[in-house]
């Protein structure tokens, strides 16, 4: 019973949404439920944040190796939460200067903005920038002409890499106009527009089908592992 009701909820919700796609009266339903979902996700933060606190408070109380870092984590978490939720140091909005809460929560100059600007932003951006290094090591290790597939992969990457810089342009600039199609920048554009389009089109179509049938399986209750039933009982 505890598992049957959710199955019915899923099925009905799914079918209603599918139907609503064809019924003009109900075409707003998708947007409404999307907004609802964001609200639920907002509630879920209590679960997630609670879990984060629990995990690291435990580490600290157990004095497990590296518990000091957990202290730092908790401190930065709680401080950010406090200054952010309380709109600490945020000026009122010019339209309602007498209402101290009317300002924008991430106003420039506020502590929350400071944390964003000098901690959040550099840390995440640097994390992202690390990819440049990993790309290099990956190309050194993974692009070896083991077989036809690998050759095609690295060959294309090669041409695109060249074609997307001045180097490529310069390499084949001696070609006459009649053979301009063979100029590397044009080859790279050709690859993108023909093979890449064909390939990603196939992938996109496949994915659409995969998503459709997965959704259908979930709605039909064939696949119900998200409810903790390992697999469908007959």
């Amino acid at each position, binding site marked *: 019973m505890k598992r049957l009701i959710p199955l019915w909820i899923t099925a009905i919700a799914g079918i209603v949404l599918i139907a609503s796609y064809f019924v003009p009266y109900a075409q707003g339903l998708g947007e409404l439920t999307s907004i609802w979902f964001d609200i639920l996700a907002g509630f879920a933060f209590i679960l*997630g944040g609670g879990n984060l606190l629990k995990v690291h408070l435990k580490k600290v109380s157990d004095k497990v190796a590296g518990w000091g870092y957990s202290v730092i984590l908790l401190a930065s978490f709680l401080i950010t939460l406090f200054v952010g939720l309380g709109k600490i140091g945020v000026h009122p909005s010019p339209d309602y200067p007498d209402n101290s809460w009317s300002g924008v929560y991430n106003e420039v100059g506020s502590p929350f903005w400071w944390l964003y600007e000098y901690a959040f932003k550099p840390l995440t951006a640097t994390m992202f920038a690390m990819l440049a290094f990993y790309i290099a090591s990956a190309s050194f290790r993974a692009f070896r002409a083991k077989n036809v597939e690998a050759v095609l992969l690295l060959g294309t990457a090669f041409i695109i890499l060249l074609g997307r810089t001045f180097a490529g342009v310069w390499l084949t600039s001696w070609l006459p106009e009649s053979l301009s199609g063979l100029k590397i920048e044009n080859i790279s554009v050709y690859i993108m527009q023909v093979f890449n389009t064909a390939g990603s089109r196939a992938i996109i179509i496949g994915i659409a089908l995969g998503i459709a049938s997965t959704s259908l399986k979930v709605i*039909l209750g064939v696949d119900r*592992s998200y409810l903790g039933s390992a697999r469908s009982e007959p």
Partner: protein
Amino acid sequence: MKLHLFALSVVFTSLGDAPATATPAPASNLIAQDHRKWDDGTRIDLAWDLSADDETLVAAYRISKALARFGDFQVPLKFELVEIVKAGTGEYTVADLARKIRLENIKTKYADIVDIESLEATNQKTFPVAYVFQIVAVGRDGATSAAATTPPITPTMEWFDGGRFWFLIIVVIFCGAVIFFIQLARGGRPLKVRKIAGLEAIDEAVGRATEMGRSCLYIPGILDMNDIQTIAGINILARVAKTAASYGAKLEVPTSRSLVMATARETVQGAFLAAGHPDAYRKDLIYYVTDEQFGYVAYVQGMMVREKPAACFYMGAFFAESLILAETGNSIGAIQVAGTAMPAQLPFFVAACDYTLIGEEFFAASAYLSGSAEELGSLKGQDVGKIIVGLGIIIGVIMLSAASVILDGSPGSPFGTALLNAVEYLKQVILT
């Protein structure tokens, strides 16, 4: 928009030159009726008899609309240009109209022309909107005829959006196929499907992790439960967890969404139960880190080099972090199996992981792993979908190519044009 400018400029230039210009006769019998096809109540069809001077003086017809009534409340007519159609055109469908309007929006947009108090007095939340339409014939020299105007009319919304009729058919065929094959499988008919490289690797990877006494790491992507890839990732997690439970391997699942954590806990608990080791389930191994993509990956990459999991699974929606994860995993010598439907990230997984489930294979994986006949049935359904694609493209391409060949040989040949129209119908009506 260009057209409007053209006509308006025509009008203005006309004001410039002094000699009185011949004004064309107006269009007559202007009728407005609700859109013929089933629609979502935003269209009105206009039809009119051409001006007597259509052949001679008229350059174009200017169509304008104006609000007439909110419910029973008259509104002073303020005509705004809708479109300008060439001479010889006798009908037009005005789209993008409103059927009802919320009081809030009337306040926002039309406070200047209606008296809000009386509207509020009715304490209705929304009011039906009525429009009047106007047609003016614009002469070649810019002179404009008298206007033909319709009585107020409100578009009506039908219960079915006719524009999506063909789409419905296609959806029914596809879903029907999936359901049909599932039923077939339930009926015990054996279904043959090809192997997918990498799926066997999952069990063997978990096994190896157990032997080495190291943990398995499972990442269900970084999107929330409202993404089907996450749901597919959770499905695969169920199978992986079952294997891990039966091997007695340690399975760690850091998530970047609270809801995914909640769902994953349900799933893994269920899997351990199904594997007959409910007591081995530890929920504190499935935990939330942060919603921030790079904060999450910063944590996971550090965790990987410290705990050195022997098997890493990346199954879900991934973005830039894919390569960070895969390269770090590679540097600690873990077996890595990835599956995602993010076309942009596939290259990195393909380059850096031992096995990668590409796009559709990723969604198929849970069916394979479950080994349940009915789930395999759904794969046959997907193949039907691919057949639809293949046929659609082949038919369309052949017809279009034939048309272009014929029309190049003998321009304006009826057969060629017929083919061309058929393709247009296929593209513009069936496939939209």
